C-alpha cells in the first residue's frame, strides 16, 4: 500500500510533517507580532513605513566626509552616518594592521624585552572590554588635553587639544583634481611595468630590477597632473588664536578617541593572527628556499609570505569586519556614526523598526560583500592539490 506523503509511518512523511508544523508555528508567530505591533503603533500614534526618509531630519551632525545640513532628509543623514562609519573603519583597518603586525612580529622577536612588552600589550588590551577602553580614551582626550586656546604643538602646524587634532590641508584647486585623476593612471602604468618585467623574466631568465622605476612612475604621473593643473601650493594652515585653533583640516576628539580605542583593541587581535600565521610556515620552507639559492628577501617574498598570508588573511578579514561592527560603539561617546544617527532618528520619530532594519541591512550588506571578496581570494590562494 502506498503511504500518504504526510504519514507518520515513513521517515520522509515525518520530515514533511515536522517542517509543516515549524512553518505553521513561525507564520503564526509572525502574524501575532504583526498584529500587536500594528496595535501598539496605533496606540502610540507612531507612523510606519519608510516614507520618513524623504523628510528633513532637523538634527545636526558634527562632522563627516558627507556634506550635510539639518535641512537635508533622513536618508541623507543616514548616508552621512554611513560615511562616518566607513571613515573611522578605513582609518582603523589601516592603522590596526600596521600596529598589529609590528606587535605580532615583536612577540616573535629574538629580543626578550621586545617579546615581553608585546605579550603584555596583547594580554592587557584583549582582556579589557572595548567599551571601557573607548570611554577611558574619550574622557582622557577631553579632560587631560589642554584647551584649544593653548594646544600642544606636535609638529609645525599640527595641534592637539581638547577640540581634537588640527593639521594643514591643501586648498582645493584644479591641480589637485588633475593629480587625483593621475593616480589610477599611475597605478595602471606601474602594473604594466611589473607585467613587462615578469614576461621578460619568463622569456630570458633575467629579472629586471623595476622596483624603483615603478615607484617613480607611480608618483610621476599624479605629480605631472598636479604641475599641469597649475602646481597649486596654497595650504590651509591651522592658526592658534587666543580662543581656539582656527582653520586647517582636523578631526574631532570623538573621532580621535574612537580611532585610538578601535586601533588599540583590534591591533592586539591582529598581532595574534600575524604571529600564528608566521609560525604556521614550517622552518623547512626557509631552509628549502636557502637551498634553492634564494636571497633572504626573495625567500621572504616568494616563499614565506605567500604561505603565511594564506593563514593570515581569512581571520584578518573577520577582524576587519569586527572593527567595522565595533565602530558602532561610537554611540557611547557621541561620534555620529550610522548607529548614532539611527539612535537620534528613533528618539525623534519613534520609528524604531524601520531605523533598525536600515542599520542591520547596511551591516549585513557590508558582511556579504566582504564574504564574497573572501571567497574569490580563497579560491585564488587555495592549495592546488593533486
Amino acid at each position: 500500500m502506498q503511504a500518504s506523503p504526510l504519514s507518520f509511518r515513513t521517515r520522509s512523511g515525518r520530515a514533511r510533517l515536522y517542517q509543516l508544523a515549524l512553518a505553521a508555528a513561525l507564520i503564526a508567530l509572525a502574524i501575532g507580532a504583526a498584529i500587536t505591533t500594528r496595535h501598539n503603533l496605533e496606540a502610540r500614534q507612531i507612523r510606519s513605513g519608510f516614507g520618513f526618509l524623504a523628510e528633513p531630519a532637523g538634527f545636526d551632525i558634527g562632522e563627516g566626509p558627507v556634506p550635510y545640513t539639518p535641512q537635508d532628509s533622513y536618508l541623507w543623514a543616514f548616508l552621512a552616518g554611513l560615511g562616518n562609519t566607513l571613515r573611522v573603519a578605513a582609518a582603523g583597518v589601516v592603522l590596526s594592521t600596521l600596529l598589529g603586525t609590528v606587535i605580532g612580529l615583536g612577540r616573535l622577536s629574538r629580543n626578550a624585552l621586545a617579546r615581553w612588552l608585546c605579550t603584555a600589550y596583547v594580554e592587557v588590551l584583549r582582556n579589557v572590554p572595548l567599551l571601557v577602553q573607548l570611554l577611558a580614551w574619550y574622557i582622557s582626550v577631553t579632560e587631560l588635553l589642554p584647551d584649544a586656546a593653548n594646544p600642544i604643538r606636535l609638529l609645525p602646524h599640527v595641534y592637539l587639544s581638547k577640540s581634537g587634532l588640527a593639521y594643514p590641508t591643501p586648498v582645493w584647486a584644479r591641480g589637485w583634481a588633475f593629480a587625483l585623476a593621475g593616480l589610477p593612471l599611475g597605478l595602471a602604468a606601474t602594473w604594466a611595468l611589473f607585467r613587462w618585467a615578469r614576461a621578460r623574466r619568463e622569456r630570458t631568465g633575467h629579472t629586471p630590477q623595476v622596483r624603483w622605476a615603478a615607484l617613480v612612475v607611480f608618483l610621476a604621473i599624479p605629480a605631472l597632473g598636479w604641475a599641469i593643473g597649475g602646481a597649486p601650493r596654497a595650504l590651509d594652515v591651522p592658526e592658534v588664536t587666543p580662543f581656539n585653533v582656527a582653520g586647517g583640516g582636523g578631526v574631532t576628539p570623538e573621532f580621535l578617541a574612537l580611532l585610538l580605542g578601535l586601533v588599540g583593541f583590534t591591533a592586539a587581535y591582529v598581532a595574534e593572527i600575524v604571529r600564528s600565521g608566521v609560525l604556521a610556515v614550517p622552518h623547512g620552507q626557509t631552509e628549502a628556499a636557502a637551498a634553492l639559492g634564494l636571497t633572504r628577501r626573495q625567500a621572504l617574498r616568494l616563499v614565506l609570505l605567500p604561505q603565511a598570508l594564506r593563514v593570515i588573511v581569512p581571520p584578518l578579514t573577520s577582524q576587519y569586519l569586527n572593527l567595522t561592527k565595533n565602530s558602532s560603539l561610537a554611540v557611547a561617546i557621541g561620534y555620529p556614526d550610522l548607529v548614532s544617527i539611527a539612535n537620534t532618528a528613533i528618539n525623534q520619530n519613534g520609528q524604531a523598526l524601520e531605523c533598525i532594519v536600515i542599520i542591520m541591512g547596511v551591516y549585513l550588506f557590508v558582511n556579504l560583500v566582504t564574504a564574497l571578496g573572501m571567497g574569490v581570494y580563497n579560491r585564488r590562494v587555495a592549495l592546488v592539490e593533486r
Partner: protein
Amino acid sequence: MSEPLPTPVRKGGVAGWLRRNLFGNPASAVATVLLGAALAWAVPRALHWTLTGAVFRADEAACRALGHHAACWGFVAEKHRLILFGRYPYEEQWRPLVATALVLAMLVATAFPRLWRRWILSAWAVVLAVFLFLMGGGALGLSRVDPGEWGGLPLTVLLTAVAMTASIPLGVLLALGRRSTLPLARTLASTYVELVRGVPLITVLFVASFVFPLILPQGLPLSGLARICIAMTLFEAAYLAEVVRGGLQALPRGQYEAAASLGLGYWQTQRRVILPQALVLVIPSFVNSLLSTFMDTSLVTVVSMYDLTGSLRLALGDPRWRGFFLEGYLFVAGIYFVSCLALSRYSQWLERRLGGWARRTREARA
C-alpha cells in the same frame, strides 16, 4: 676546501640566556638598550604614581594636593560601593554581595572537571534562583528591590550568567538545526546565525529596548532588565551555535552509524551519543565564549543600564571627583582584566587537559 667552523659558544646559564635573548645581534642589542632605557624611565614613575606617591584615603584635599602627579585611590575608596553595586539601596548591599559571591563560588566549583556531573546543572539553576531572590527580595523579610535599581558587578555577573546558561539550549538547537536533514530547519538556523553574527551587539540591544515594546502585547510585564537578558541570550546563542557546530563536526561519522545500528532515533542519538561527546570537546571554546559574553555585557551601558561600566560613569558624575577618572577606569579595567585573564588561562589549561583526554580515548579506541 673551506675552513672548519669555530667551536660553537657554550650557551648555558644566565649569561648565555642574556646573550641569546638580549644581545643576540647588533639590532637586538640596540633594541635592548632603547627599550631598557624607556623602561628604566617609565617603571619608577609608574610605581610612584600607582603606589608610593598615591593617596589611598578618601581625602579630597590630599588628592587635589597631588596635582595628578600620583594616583588618588581615594576616589575608589569613596565610591567603591557605588561602582560595585550601582544604585542598589545602600543598607541592603549585603544582598548583592552574597548573591554575587554565591555565583562566583559556583563558577569556581564548575571549573573542576571532577565535578562535571548532571547535578551541577540543577545546582546552577538553584544558585541562579537564589541570586534572583536575594537581589529582588519581596519575601522572607527581605524588602523588595526593583530590577531597575540593580547595578554594578552583580548586574554584570547576572547578565553574563543568564545569557550564558540560557543560550546553551538555544545554541545547541541552532547547531543541530544547521546540520539537520530538514531543509526548512537548516535554512532557518543558518539564516538566524548568520544574521545575528553579521550585526553589532548594539543593534540587538536597540531591538531589545526599542522594538520589543512594539512587537510584544502591552499587557506583558517585561522589565527592561528582562528584555536585555533576552536580547543578550539571542545574540550569544548565535555564536554558541557555531561553537557547538564545531564539536558536532569533529565527531566521526561512525558514531552516528553506530547509534543508528543500535536502533536509536534522532533525539536519542543526539542526547545519548552525539551531544555528550561533542559538548565535552567544545568546553574550552565555551569558556572563551563566556569570556566574550562577560566583556560584551559592558555594552548595556549604552541602553542606560548601570552595570560595572555604567556605574563607574555614574560615580564619575560627581563633579568633586570627576578629575580622578583615570583611577576609576583603572580600577574597573583591573576587575575585567583579572577575571578575563583567569578565564583565558583556565581555558588554555583545560584545552591541554582535555586534549590529553581526547588523545587517550582515541588511543584506547584504536
